[in-house]
């Protein structure tokens, strides 16, 4: 279970204080698929960074399965990202000179898994995200956008994280590929019992998630409960 308590992140910009995240609180059950929508600059990505421990909040806390992130040292936050978080980025952010399978193996290598075990798991994950086996050993810069995003999702699942944070996962994909990706995330959430939080400005995409939050001027409101998923 993910609990976000009165999360605030503020920046100084000259004389002004900007609060892209201003007192955000919500809870997500394990295995849920949720989305956050909002305009550009509304603080969606900042909120995601706080949840993924890429950034530290000015105040407030994120509690994952009872463990508070507030006050954790950098080393512990790195461990948290490695063990409990999976990231899916709009730009995919794969290592271009590595193959698909090598990219998926990276988080497992950082977690200290043995080579044979991580190779087997990487291939299984790539099969789950329906990447053509012929392309498993292909460098990711030679894959299409949709294929790269599938590899990125497989990489996010590598260490069986509790929470997958997807930042505009379909932003660089055509509509059909984007729908496939959302279906994939939805099925993975269900199959792996993994909590997935998708940040998007695509309202139609958000409609396909179980819960949808709207972020406006740093404040979060739950806009719609579609009832499609928990």
């Amino acid at each position: 279970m993910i609990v976000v308590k009165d999360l605030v992140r503020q920046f100084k910009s000259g004389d002004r204080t900007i609060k892209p995240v201003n007192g955000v609180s919500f809870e997500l059950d394990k295995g849920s698929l949720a989305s956050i929508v909002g305009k550009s600059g509304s603080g969606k990505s900042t909120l995601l960074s706080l949840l993924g421990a890429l950034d530290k909040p000015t105040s407030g806390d994120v509690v994952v399965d009872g463990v508070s992130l507030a006050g954790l040292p950098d080393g512990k936050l790195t461990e948290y990202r490695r063990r409990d978080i999976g990231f899916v980025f709009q730009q995919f952010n794969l290592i271009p000179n590595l193959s698909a399978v090598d990219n998926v193996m990276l988080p497992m290598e950082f977690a200290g898994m043995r080579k044979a075990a991580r190779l087997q798991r990487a291939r299984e994950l790539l099969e789950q995200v329906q990447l053509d086996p012929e392309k498993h050993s292909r460098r990711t810069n030679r894959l299409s956008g949709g294929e790269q995003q599938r590899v990125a999702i497989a990489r996010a699942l590598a260490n069986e994280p509790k929470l997958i944070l997807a930042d505009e996962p379909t932003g660089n994909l055509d509509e059909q590929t984007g729908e496939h990706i959302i279906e994939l995330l939805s099925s993975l959430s269900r199959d792996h019992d993994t909590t997935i939080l998708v940040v998007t400005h695509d309202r139609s995409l958000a409609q396909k998630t179980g819960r949808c939050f709207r972020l406006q001027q740093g404040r979060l409101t739950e806009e719609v409960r579609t009832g499609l998923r928990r």
Partner: protein
Amino acid sequence: MSVLARSVGNAFRNKIRTAAVVAVLAVAIGLALAMLVANQAVGAKVQELNASVGTTLTVNPAGGQGFEGGGEPLTTAEAETTASVANVTSVVGTKALRLQTTTTTGSTDAATTQQAGPGGGFGPGGQQATVSTNLTAAVDAGTLGNRNNASGTTTLPARTLPITATGIGAEVDSTGKALEITSGTGLGDYTSSEAKALVGTSLAEKNGLTVGSTFTIQDKTFTITGIFDAGTAFGNNAVYVTLPEAQTLAETPDELSTMIVTVNSLENVDSTKTAVQDALGTDKADVTQGQRNLETAVSSLDSVKNISMIAFIAALATAGIIIMLIMVMLVRERRREIGVLKAIGARNRTIGLQFVLESLVLVALGSVVGAVIASLASGGIASALISSNTTTTAATTTQRGGGLAGAMPNGTVPGGGMPGGGMGGGQGGPFGGASQLLTSVTASVSPGVLAAGITAVFAVAIIGALVPALLTARIRPIEVLRGE
């Protein structure tokens, strides 16, 4: 894929750039290795020169150096005075004898006689005692020997050359160099009067002597304990006995022909020479320094050594800076990738290690090519360095060496005319050979030097790569991923 495999892969990510980086590194590393090789070669040559010439001074009686002379002989008390001078590590006294073959002297009185050294023939005038022996000289008189024996227009009957005998206080020859004993052993205690002798190879061969054989001097039987090789026909026509024994044979128990003074370092030779001269008095002894020109030559070589060491360090630093700049560039170029790696759980040290290993892959490639460059260029670089630093010295040395030889009667310095102990072993040899010694530095890439050089290169590369590796720790993933 391990960190190492990923580092190797990253090193070849951009092949053209990698080739360019390796080429630049190879030049720097090659230059560093070539300079190290030159440094080692010159260092070895300096050691060789110091070892060959030694840090020795030769002390002769005042006015007794050369072919004419007089004055008072040196004494053991003066040897003790010399030994007490600062920076003197040892003083070896010698006593020169002239052995005349009994059969050629015929009915000549075999008793010891003090004779002035014949002009052109012997060392310090009045110093050499002529004593009889049953040995036959290994050198035939020939034209030179008979000319020296001539008296005006009257040609005397063919004669046999005398044999040089020297009493020594340590296992060194009359110039202070260690004796090269090819068979048998030394004389043991050089401070005691024992009927033991060392003979030169040609003298032993001429007289059919081996270790354990005996011969006589002044009717006293001497046992040969060893046979030495002096490297020259003249030097091998010689006998060495202990100093007290030679003094007894000459019936001058307190006298020395020369003293070989060893100084603790080349730098102290000049000052010690002055100190010894002051201690003994200019009216008592002449102190000569055989290696003055070679000291200048060694000084030039030391300059080359210093220059090559500075160039080695500079080239090494250049390689380190190249690595640092390249890796800083790569870190800046891959900020996003580093941010992603951190976002998916990579530790700072894992990423830092990856960049250090990547730099070492580049250095390894540069070292291989650099070693080839060094093996091809080190000889030329060393020669160029030496020739540019020693041309003047070598020219001066050659000129002075030749001049000294020319000053001798008939130019026969190394020939059979002058027994050891008379002139400090004939100084024209080392003087004349200085230029050859300088230009004969052989710079070859030995595995040891190569290993040392490459170890230094890798150490510098690691230091150079640590800076960008530490930079990666400062990259915050949120900053590089904010563009998402």
